[in-house]
């Protein structure tokens, strides 16, 4: 029975496909899983929106939305209907084609990222052995859609917002990649399935998740920082800083296209937290051996929603970073630490088992963290503002 | 018309388009775009020959293409850096007007 619950989706899909002629079965099977993804993740997006608004409310000592339906459950539905029925105004000076393509391109690209995430035991849409590289390649092309949106609106604020967003995403893409390279080094394969299988073993009931190793914890924290920046969230949401940039690159968007951007951002967040779970939190493996009876996909979606709650928690707490602080932090703190983490991961691998490697690796990382923190991020002497007027 | 010749023809066409772009366009960046296209055409050739070549397990073609992608990215970066510097110096990216050697 437990096995059936775990493989419920796979069995369901095979059962549905069995009615079709043989040559049609494989494409329809893939089609079914694609439809499943396209249905579940926007549903998760709706839940996250509700969680976010209620969570932020509770953090600020107030209720969240509780008027639309019991405890505000239908609030996402209301938001959805509102944004769908809103009039879609396109500025006359905007470049219509690129203006329309930007959100479509963003959503398509973000959904393609889900093809490689292992959501449960043999529940991966496409089992590529270079799956991780595919995910990062897809992640890299979201910047282009951000730029297209910013430039095509022909509006100073949106261009400025787009420039900031692209600069931020590029400079945080390298730490994102480097911190996952550490995981790839330890597993020896780029395939997310293999990464999860390696983490799925247990000693004394405790799983081999990478987050429980010093270099893994460091890589996970750096990955989270880079992921928050990559999806323009919480402390790094400068591009759509409402206070100074109106709404950043999607100022000139309204109605359905704005909803698409909103969807793209949240589905991107879900994808990057899905990847974080796969790389560091053992994808669909249970936290304790005795809990293995719970279906594997429950763990995956549980961990993804937990990381979303952490995103929301960060958003409720941290103020927005200034652009130069943001860049400074990326190039002078996060990147060196990720490179050092690669060295520590190598050290961890070749020092063999035993407590020594725990001590050495953690010592190096802590030392580097304090030194970098004290040295790099000390309050530098702020030079008087120098203005450069347009020549 | 074996698949290989198909790929080679596409690569040749891409190369010709890149060359045409590089030769006819006035804007320096468009010339760089033309050069990028030519480089990509070469990569396509490499991988086509690797795929339909005698020893695909030797990976020579693919490795060559990967290194060529890396080098082309570096070249694009430096090239665009130069273009920006020239623009900042002479206020124009129009190649026809860059005919003076004076600094």
């Amino acid at each position, binding site marked *: 029975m437990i096995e059936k619950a775990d493989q419920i989706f796979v069995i369901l899909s095979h059962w549905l496909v069995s009615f079709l002629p043989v040559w049609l079965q494989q494409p329809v099977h893939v089609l079914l899983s694609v439809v499943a993804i396209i249905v579940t993740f926007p549903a998760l997006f709706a839940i996250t929106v509700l969680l976010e608004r209620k969570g932020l409310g509770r953090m600020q000592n107030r209720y969240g939305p509780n008027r639309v339906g019991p405890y505000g459950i239908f609030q996402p539905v209301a938001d959805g209907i509102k944004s769908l029925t809103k009039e879609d105004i396109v500025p006359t000076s905007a470049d219509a084609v690129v203006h329309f393509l930007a959100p479509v391109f963003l959503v398509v690209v973000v959904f393609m990222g889900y093809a490689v995430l292992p959501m449960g035991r043999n529940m991966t849409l496409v089992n590529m052995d270079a799956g991780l590289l595919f995910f990062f*390649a897809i992640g890299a092309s979201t910047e282009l859609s951000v730029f297209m949106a910013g430039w095509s609106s022909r509006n100073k604020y949106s261009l400025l917002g787009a420039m900031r967003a*692209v600069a931020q995403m590029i400079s945080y893409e390298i730490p994102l990649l480097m911190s996952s390279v550490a995981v790839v080094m330890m597993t020896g394969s780029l395939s997310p399935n293999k990464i999860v299988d390696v983490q799925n073993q247990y000693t004394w009931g405790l799983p081999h998740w990478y987050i429980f190793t010093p270099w893994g914890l460091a890589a996970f924290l750096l990955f989270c920082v880079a992921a928050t920046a990559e999806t323009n969230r919480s402390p790094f949401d400068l591009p759509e800083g409402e206070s100074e940039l109106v709404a950043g690159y999607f100022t000139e968007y309204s109605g359905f296209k704005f909803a698409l951007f909103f969807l793209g951002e949240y589905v991107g967040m879900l994808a990057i937290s899905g990847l974080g779970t796969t790389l560091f939190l053992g994808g669909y493996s249970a936290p304790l051996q005795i809990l293995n009876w719970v279906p594997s996909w429950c763990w995956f979606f549980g961990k993804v929603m937990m990381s979303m709650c952490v995103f929301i928690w960060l958003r409720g707490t941290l103020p927005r970073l200034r652009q130069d602080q943001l860049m400074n932090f990326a190039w002078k703190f996060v990147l060196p630490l990720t490179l050092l983490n690669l060295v520590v991961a190598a050290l961890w691998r070749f020092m063999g088992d035993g407590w020594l490697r725990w001590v050495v690796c953690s010592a190096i990382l802590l030392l580097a963290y304090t030194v970098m923190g004290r040295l790099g991020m000390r309050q530098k002497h702020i030079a008087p503002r120098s203005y450069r007027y347009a020549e | 018309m074996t698949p290989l*010749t198909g790929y080679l023809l596409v690569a040749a066409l891409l190369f010709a388009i890149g060359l045409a772009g590089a030769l006819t366009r006035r804007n320096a960046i468009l010339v760089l775009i033309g050069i990028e296209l030519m480089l990509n055409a070469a990569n396509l050739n490499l991988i086509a020959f690797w795929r339909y070549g*005698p020893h*695909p397990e030797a990976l020579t073609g*693919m490795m060559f293409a990967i290194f060529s992608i*890396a080098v082309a990215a570096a070249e694009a970066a430096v090239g*665009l*850096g130069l273009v920006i510097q020239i623009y900042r110096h002479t206020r124009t990216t129009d190649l026809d007007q860059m005919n003076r050697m004076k600094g």
Partner: protein
Amino acid sequence: MSIVFYVLAGLTVAGALAAVALKNTVHCALALTVAFAGLALLFLELDAQFAGFAQILIYIGAVAILVVFAILLTRGSETPKDTVYSNKWLLGLVTAAAVFAVLGWAVLHSTEALPHETAKPAVTVMDIGNALMGRYVLPLEIVALLLTAALIGAVIVAMHEKEGAR
């Protein structure tokens, strides 16, 4: 010749033509991205998975954005006043056509040295890793050196002069 190849080839060539022929430079850059994407799909069609993803990651992820940044920094996005083509554009077209003619002739008349249909090479990332670390370790180090040099070079070239010398 599978239909997929024709579709992808058409996409790539259309993207390349648009990248070269369009008037608005930013549209050229976006068309260039379409050409890069078409090429990446062609690589995947040729079962060069690693090269295809590397192409997407490097070209669409970085080079396209670089080109677009360059266009914006040099105020290229405003529509130019005079014609977009240099005044010796005909000569350029003729040379390009000649080059294509020669290449096409060479390709079509080349002897059938290579077999038509070879087995699909099962290339895993492990083999690429071993090749990179084994046979191609020297080129790898050289490329690493070159990339660092290019990184520093590009920054120095494009750095804003501190003393504002005009």
